[in-house]
């Protein structure tokens, strides 16, 4: 069998960073080729080179179907039969779902006008394949992150491609959507389409991949059929050191003291296309880790936004038994809340600012005397966190936009943990984070809880929720449909509450 | 000082046809006298812009400056400074009386306004509603003319000024303002065009079908002889224009400056260049 695409000796140097060092990769049609590696290993960069978003350093070659090519841009890549789902969402908020899926190849009628009906029907068909029930005429700006991700996926598979690259497609999907996607991937492979599959959810790799390539520090360290790979071996190849344990024995630090009570929380003026959050009530205890589970669009993020004051609500929120009107995030923050948002680019980071400036934004006054920032102390503290969370960056002065996705996520976690809030809400905290770092984040959350911090974890990763939560609350279509203690919670009953 | 080494600068208020005529007169005079000549047009009508220009001219060591002042008070200080630096300074067209300039050459705007007001009063038979269409609301020469008009109309208690409208010296705005004026005042007897835009604007409006019945009924007096204004007189839309003598002003300005620099003129005195009321009768025969 001749390979569809071969990359030889691919290197890429950014100012201060050598992201890739002579990488080789061979891809075949009809095969699922997984690429694994720690955050910042160079996976996304390799894919960007394959689709012409970035150009590799001189010396590297790319061969497609036996012919050497210089891929100039994504459109060129697509004409060669290569399409990609970017790790960082690349959707246009002010266009509809259908317009996004068919952007730059809209069907037109004889008069040269866009044939909306045809386009919407075609979009609906693609969405149906992915088991998404969304109106194709909806604006993408009104979708949740997970739904936007599905739109990206729909777009990529709607091209008549020979090779589809999926860079962490399931990072913001919950179990159900992920399952649908994996089924889709297998079906595509059966249609003689090649797939590159990047994911930090290792079980997915074992479920669907034919071959797995492991990258570390910009190099390929291993590549073999998945049958010859074990999970332990994969992890060892990725991180090059022994990981103690993924999920340690669960120890609860919850006390009886109620820190946060939410009563009959609901949306203020629900719009027709949003999950109608209503009657959400729960308590959060000091030192407790409270998990929130649900399918995408269940309304978990919205509940958290209401609690954090960034979304209008009806109902009551009590802190230490005192009612507080969360009219603005600054109110919530002064009440001791922190919020690691799920939308990195839109809500989490000021992309054009440095790691240091993003890091300190939540607690800048810690470094201030008379409003003057002591940059020395700021940098020192930032370095500590870079060290502690293993953030891969040449220096604290690097702009966050230049970090890899997982490392950006770590910056967001760092900026909130450094503030030491009493209540920390983390929405999809380990999205896009590699296995090693994931274990470290879990350990960090446990440690914070042990120190008396209360934590709400929203995650679509069911094993994660089950492993670290003292209690699990399940949301479905805006309502609480289940509550379980750590002991009660199991894959089956939690999933049943979320879907049933 | 040798004449070829003398540099005189002339600064108008802004780029409009009136000053182009001044430039013509001034340049001719400079060429004839054999002195170097600089024409510096401000980019806007604010007093501060002219102050900057005079500063630049002082730095350039010119020998004489003639200026048409946009705002009298704001240039006082800098003109004194120029005079102290040994530069001959005079004003033309628009004065700054307390600045220490040697002389003023030009129209007395208030007097011109009075002439205009009297002409209008006679044309409409001493009674009725009239309106004023002016240019920039802040322009001092226009305000002096308006004051003159009002002074003249004091003698005619049956004449009322129905409205005063600004046009920012923009023809399009002038036209739409005039249209609205005529619609809102069906009984309007006369319009004063105080700035160069007034004449063409009114003429164009009266040429429209909607207002064809107002032609001849509505008496129009305007300022300055722009081609369109002259055409308006020819076509019978405009009854009279106040024509100043910009070419003369420019010529006199340079001549007096050079005379002062060479020391020929010892005690300069103001010169009133006057206005001519141009009507269909004397249309081909006036001088500027």
């Amino acid at each position, binding site marked *: 069998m001749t390979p569809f695409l071969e990359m030889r000796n691919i290197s890429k140097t950014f100012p201060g960073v050598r992201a890739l060092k002579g990488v080789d990769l061979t891809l075949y049609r009809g095969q699922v080729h997984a690429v694994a590696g720690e955050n910042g290993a160079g996976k996304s960069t390799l894919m960007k080179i394959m689709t012409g978003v970035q150009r590799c350093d001189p010396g590297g070659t790319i061969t497609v179907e036996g012919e050497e090519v210089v891929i100039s841009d994504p459109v060129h890549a697509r004409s060669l039969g290569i399409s990609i789902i970017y790790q960082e969402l*690349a959707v246009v908020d002010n266009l509809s779902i259908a317009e996004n899926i068919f*952007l730059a190849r809209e069907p037109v009628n004889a008069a040269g006008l866009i044939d909306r009906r045809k386009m919407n029907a075609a979009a609906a068909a693609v969405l149906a394949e992915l088991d998404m029930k969304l109106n194709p005429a909806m604006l993408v700006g009104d979708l949740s992150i997970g739904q936007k991700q599905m739109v990206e996926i729909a777009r990529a598979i709607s091209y008549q491609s020979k090779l589809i690259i999926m860079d962490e497609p399931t990072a913001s999907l919950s179990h159900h959507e992920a399952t649908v996607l994996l089924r889709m991937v297998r079906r595509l492979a059966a249609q003689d389409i090649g797939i590159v599959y990047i994911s930090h959810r290792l079980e997915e790799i074992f479920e669907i991949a034919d071959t797995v390539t492991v990258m570390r520090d910009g190099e390929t360290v291993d590549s073999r059929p998945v049958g010859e790979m074990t999970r332990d071996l994969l992890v060892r190849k990725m991180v090059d050191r022994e990981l103690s344990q993924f999920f340690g024995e669960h120890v609860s630090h919850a006390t009886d003291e109620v820190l946060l009570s939410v009563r009959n929380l609901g949306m203020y003026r629900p719009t027709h296309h949003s999950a109608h959050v209503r009657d959400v009530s729960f308590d959060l205890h000091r030192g407790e880790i409270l998990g929130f589970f649900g399918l995408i669009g269940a309304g978990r993020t919205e509940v958290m936004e209401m609690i954090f004051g960034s979304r209008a609500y009806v109902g009551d929120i009590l802190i230490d038994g005192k009612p507080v009107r969360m009219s603005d995030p600054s109110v919530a923050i002064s009440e001791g809340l922190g919020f690691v948002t799920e939308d990195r680019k839109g809500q989490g980071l000021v992309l054009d600012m440095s790691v240091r400036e993003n890091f300190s934004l939540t607690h800048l006054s810690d470094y201030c005397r008379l409003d003057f920032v002591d940059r020395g102390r700021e940098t020192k503290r930032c370095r500590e966190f870079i060290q502690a969370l293993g953030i891969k960056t040449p220096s604290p002065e690097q702009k966050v936009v230049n970090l890899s996705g997982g490392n950006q996520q770590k910056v967001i976690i760092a900026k909130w943990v450094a503030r030491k809030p009493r209540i920390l809400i983390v929405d999809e905290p380990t999205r896009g984070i590699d296995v090693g770092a994931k274990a470290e984040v879990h350990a960090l959350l446990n440690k914070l809880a042990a120190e008396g911090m209360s934590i709400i974890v929203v995650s679509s990763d069911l094993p994660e929720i089950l492993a670290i939560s003292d209690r699990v609350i399940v949301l479905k279509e805006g309502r609480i449909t289940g509550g379980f203690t750590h002991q009660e919670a199991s894959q089956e009953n939690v999933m049943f509450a979320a879907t049933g | 000082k040798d004449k070829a080494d003398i540099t005189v600068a002339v600064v108008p208020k802004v*780029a409009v046809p009136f000053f182009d005529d001044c430039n013509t007169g001034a340049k001719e005079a400079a060429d004839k006298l054999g002195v170097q000549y600089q024409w510096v047009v401000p980019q806007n009508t604010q007093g501060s812009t002219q102050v900057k220009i005079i500063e630049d001219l002082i730095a350039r060591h010119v020998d004489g400056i003639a200026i048409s002042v946009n705002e009298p008070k704001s240039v006082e200080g800098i003109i004194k400074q120029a005079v102290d630096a040994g530069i001959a300074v005079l004003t033309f067209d628009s004065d700054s009386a307390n600045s220490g300039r040697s002389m003023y050459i030009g129209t007395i705007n208030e007097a011109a306004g009075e002439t205009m007001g009297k002409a209008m009063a006679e044309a409409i038979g001493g009674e009725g509603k009239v309106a004023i269409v002016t240019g920039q609301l802040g322009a001092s020469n226009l305000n002096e003319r308006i004051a003159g008009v009002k002074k003249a109309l004091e003698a005619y208690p049956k004449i009322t000024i129905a409205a005063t409208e600004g046009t920012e010296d923009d023809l399009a705005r002038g036209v739409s303002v005039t249209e609205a004026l005529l619609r809102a005042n069906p009984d309007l007897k006369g319009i004063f065009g105080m700035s160069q835009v007034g004449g063409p604007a009114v003429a164009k409006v009266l040429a429209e079908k909607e207002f064809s019945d107002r032609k001849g009924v509505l008496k129009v007096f305007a300022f300055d002889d722009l081609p369109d204004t002259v055409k308006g007189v020819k076509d019978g839309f405009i009854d009279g224009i106040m024509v100043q003598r910009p070419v003369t002003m420019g010529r006199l300005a340079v001549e007096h400056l050079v005379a002062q620099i060479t020391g020929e003129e010892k005690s300069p005195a103001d010169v009133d260049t006057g206005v001519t009321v141009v009507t269909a009768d004397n249309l081909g025969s006036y001088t500027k």
Partner: protein
Amino acid sequence: MLATDQHETASGSLHSRLIAEAGKLFQVREFNVLIALVVVGVLISLYTPYFFTTNNLMGVFRAFSLTAIMSIGMVMVIITGGIDLSVGSAMGLASLVTALCFSAGYPTEVCVAAGLGVGLVFGLCNGLLITFIGLPPFIATLGTLSIGRGLMYMITRGVPVTPETPEGFAVLGQGYLGPVPVPVIIMVLLMLVFAVIMRRTRFGRHVYATGGNEHAARLSGVKVDRIKLSVYVLSSTIAALAGVIGFSRYLSAEPASGFGSELDVIAAAAIGGASLAGGAGSVTGAVIGAALVGVIANGVVLLNINTYAQQAITGGVILIAVSLDVLRSRLMGGKN
């Protein structure tokens, strides 16, 4: 924005249904500005009988038609996230060049083509400076604005150009079709054409995509640079068309014509719902925005309001109109 008042308010259901229905014709913002326009019109006609006459209305329409025409091009630029400060210069220079061609005795078609050609050149300069060199649109078009003005002064030395023109040419600016002035007809036609283009064609959607998320649009294969170049060329050429119509209307090319009009034109687009951040706005909205300003300007003269106060009133009415619009759409839900 964060809600100031977070309690449910039962807004009249009839009202909201009406709005929803109208929304199919107009986007909400346009609709609200249209309401503001109607309210201002009714208020004026309560106090003067002269406002609501065919003659006056047509006069008003003609008076704001040039601004409205220019705002059609401008709004497309703004939707891509850009700005075109040079429209006034393009308009003025186009009218001047047309006039000069007439002076030189060329036939009407040549003169009009030369005028429009000026717009094309402006647009290409702006577009290339922005896409090829990578200048920020504000700087690029500020530069061409200054150069255009400078050229006009250099050519005219402040003296208007008023050539003789053949009979037929004046129809463009002064003619009527029934009671409707020709410039108004041109404005309406352009509005309809570009409204359809922006909503229904690939080009239009790509303009929105470029302003919404340039990076994503580019990755999807939208030829972003070509789109940008096109909108600047369109904007300048439409402005030049306005210049030619203006010249035909007044048969005089003023050396200062169009100066400062960029602010009016941008304001029309912004009042009609265009966001300077890009991605939002509409052609019909821009025209309605120009209409609102035009009606106010007419009203203050008809009502014989002190000229000195006119600008203050215009400013105040715009603020109130847009504030009501913003407040209403905030009350009607929306996000934080």
